[in-house]
């Protein structure tokens, strides 16, 4: 029997859902609003959510003072590059885990995921030294590798879940039809898993784009992405909230737009296989 929803209950639920959503979204809203204020009204006390004197000055100044396109391009290269490289490694890995599992496959998956729970700061010094000694410091290649390794467990886990949904008989049919392993993965498995792969790509691009700890630590100028771009506005001379907010808005806008338009795909992807 369906649970009865009275109008009052519905109103209450809707109101609380909006409150929680607003609470979570508030910092982003604050940032966006502040980016259009003057520095004076940004630090006004008591704080004002809406200011009387709107301005685009902050954006103009941020654009002039820094090389936004370079940071933006670095972000694109790092997030897309690390995700694609991750896929190249994860597809065969997930294939073998899903279709020819060993007795320890489950444990291996759990172990891979558990590495995501390790605090990044714990390996900060060795990572920093390795990057310096090998010339990977402040290089796009280095960060692509670092971000790829960091997100690989998530990529493998997600793909594994999608691949498990594909009937093994179809792959066997491909084998009977003369496909070797690569043809089987290229012509049959991958096209069938496209929705899952798309969700995986989206999520990992977002994760890599938003990553700040390693991208700030392991870069100085050349390979620095938008996360470092935001950080560069908190200078020793003091914090300029309005400009910092403008820079932040510019940094998060691309991924926010991407996320907005791919909402459906993302939600579908993340709940894939949950309901048959």
């Amino acid at each position, binding site marked *: 029997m369906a649970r009865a929803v009275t109008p009052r209950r519905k109103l209450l639920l809707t109101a609380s859902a909006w409150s929680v959503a607003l609470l979570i979204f508030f910092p982003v809203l604050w940032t966006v609003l502040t980016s259009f204020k003057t520095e004076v009204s940004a630090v006004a006390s008591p704080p004002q959510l809406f200011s009387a004197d709107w301005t685009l000055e902050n954006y103009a100044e941020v654009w002039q003072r820094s090389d936004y396109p370079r940071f933006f391009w670095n972000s694109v290269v790092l997030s897309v590059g690390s995700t694609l490289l991750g896929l190249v490694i994860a597809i065969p890995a997930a294939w073998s885990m899903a279709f020819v599992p060993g007795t320890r496959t489950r444990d291996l998956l759990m172990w891979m995921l558990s590495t995501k729970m390790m605090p990044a700061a714990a390996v900060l010094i060795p990572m920093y030294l390795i990057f310096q000694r090998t010339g990977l410091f402040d290089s796009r290649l280095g960060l692509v590798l670092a971000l790829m390794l960091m997100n690989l467990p998530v990529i493998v886990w997600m793909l594994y879940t999608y691949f498990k949904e594909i009937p093994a008989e*179809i792959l066997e049919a491909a084998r009977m*039809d003369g496909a070797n392993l690569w*043809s089987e993965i290229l012509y049959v498995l991958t096209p069938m898993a496209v929705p899952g792969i798309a969700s995986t790509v989206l999520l990992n691009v977002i994760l890599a784009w938003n990553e700040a700890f390693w991208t700030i630590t392991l870069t100085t100028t050349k390979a620095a992405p938008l996360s470092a771009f935001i950080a560069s506005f908190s200078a020793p001379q003091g914090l300029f909230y309005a400009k910092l907010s403008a820079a932040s808005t510019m940094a998060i806008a691309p991924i926010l737009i991407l996320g907005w338009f791919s909402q459906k795909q993302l939600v579908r992807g993340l709940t894939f296989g949950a309901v048959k």
Partner: protein
Amino acid sequence: MGKITLKSVRKAFGEVDVIPGIDLGIEDGEFVVFVGPSGCGKSTLLRLIAGLEDVTSGTITIDGKDMTELPPAQRGLAMVFQSYALYPHMSVRKNIAFPLKMAGVSPEEQERKVQAAAKVLNLGDYLDRRPGQLSGGQRQRVAIGRAIVREPKAFLFDEPLSNLDAALRVSMRQEISELHQNLKTTMIYVTHDQVEAMTMADKIVVLNAGRIEQVGSPMELYRSPANLFVAGFIGSPKMNLIEGAEAARHGAATIGIRPEHIDIGRGDWHGVVGLSEHLGSDTFLKVMADGLGTLTVRADGEVSIKAGDRIRMSPQPDKIHRFDKDGKALA
């Protein structure tokens, strides 16, 4: 050519011997049906021949060549799966052409062969559709088309009709039989349905618990089952099996008599009809026979016997099967 020979083929999953050891010869052009109850190892045996499973020991030769260690693609066999296993993202045309593409056949030649297969299977109008837009029967035809274009040495069918409704199953059964007559290629067909086995096979292999119980033509198996298992499995409705004094009177531990070999109206067997099923052409009676247990008897379609009637019956003497205490048939 498609002569397949299995020598001491054994398959174990971990500690469990699914197939303890099988020797079997399949002649070129033969239609062989593996039949047996669920879990008897018939599908596993087919997958061993296909190369989808590795044999634990023993050899599989095709046309005299040892194929035991070769991957499925190099054995020259084609398989039709129970679930059809079509590629859902490809059109019917691309599904059928896939094995040709994998073999490096030119696009023109691919198209020619696809058209030829589509003509044989009446799929001409559906070539640009996706499998999801087809009915069960059409999907099965596409799966067969994909097998035909390879011009394999043998076709392997793994319960291909199980997902179809009863009417479609009968017509597809006939189509596959006709296909065999036209192509004259070796076919190995796995089913748990003894009607499919009886109607399609040149040779039936009855399997039970991974062992071959009997190999023979449908009528050989029907007329002289080698043991109680085959006696009970082949024939519909099932053979009546009688133990005790009546069996002893015939010098056996168990005797078997098929429902169609019991005459009504005279004889020494008495019983009360418990259930009378009129099928039109036949009437099947369940009779509680005195001292013999429940017997199934086939009577004429027009017979007016009903539940509760007391009847007399007699088995046709030359149709009585005798089995010893181990269940083996006595000569």
